[in-house]
């Protein structure tokens, strides 16, 4: 994969994560929306990892599982923080 495509993928990733982050902050007094924002961000990251791996032609179930497991960890982290506020 050429460098410009790689850069483009990362710009998409940063845009998606920034959107989730600001959504999360904006609704800091609304736990339900925060939970939805956290879930959407984690699904986005898993999706990004899998599509990126697919386009790089280096996707296998271990790579997919790695992105999904990290997304689950981050979701668990955000879930605990939202619930215990």
């Amino acid at each position: 994969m050429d460098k410009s495509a790689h850069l483009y993928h990362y710009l998409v990733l940063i845009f998606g994560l920034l959107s989730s982050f600001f959504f999360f902050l904006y609704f800091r007094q609304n736990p339900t929306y925060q939970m939805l924002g956290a879930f959407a961000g984690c699904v986005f990251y898993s999706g990004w990892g899998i599509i990126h791996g697919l386009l790089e032609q280096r996707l296998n179930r271990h790579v997919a599982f790695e992105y999904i497991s990290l997304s689950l960890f981050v979701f668990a982290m955000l879930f605990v923080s939202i619930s215990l506020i």
Partner: protein
Amino acid sequence: MPVKHLKHHILPHPIHKKRATLLQSKAVLFYSLTLLTFFTFFKQIPSVLPGVLSYASNITVSDLLRYTNVKRSEAGVGELTIDAKLTAAAQKKAEDMFKKNYWAHVAPDGTDPWSFIVGQDYDYLYAGENLAKNFGGSRDVIEAWYKSPSHRENLINGKYTDVGFATVNGVLDGYETTLVVQMFGRTRSAPAQVAVKGVDKSAVTRPVDTPVTIVENEPVEKTAPIARPPMSPRVDVHTTTKTFLLSFAALIFTLFALDMWYSKKHAILKFTGHSFAHMLFLIFAISAVFFSLGPGRII
């Protein structure tokens, strides 16, 4: 355990071309379960040991009044003065929430905020209520209300002339916390102030032009603003949760950083996801936890 094996728990394996054991997907899943166990444990403590977990706070009525009036001055409306009846109503509302274990404008039995105000013989033309819990300081409470359009409508509403505050410590849902009740009002005899423009109508305010039926006719208590001592927690939920989550995430971030550095140094080409992307994701998660675990909740 030999050092060589220990090394592969934190650094990638150059021969097997795998991530460090502590970063493999199964380990990350285990971390998720650990977080959920921590959460369950924290949720169960209040039922076993009520009042052990708490939200530290140092909220005072004088500061709440001062910051409220600062916001009102900035908005160009007149300052509020403490009213003993509204203070008593706020106090009773806070005590009612602890007694019946609820966190809402309307109690589970249907008692609305106006009942507390009317119960104190405050003959109001306009009244409103803001609630807050789990906050650490007075300024945080006012800032949170100010940032919310519906609460701001109460805070800088020119129709109000009086205010009453209650900051009451107690146990809600098993957690020791401080509830803040702010009740606004204007009696029928009070002169009108400047009306505020451009605010939404979803606030918990009730301009009353129709007669209100006094459902309770308790004697009016002339209560002065009550200064509560700062609450010193045994286990502060905010600090403990924040420290635990951020340390955990920082540890995993460090492991990914080590993985990236070591793989590059030793030219280990692993068939895995991108460590850099994972680190980016963790930075956003850490930032979200850091900024969201600030002040408490308002309604």
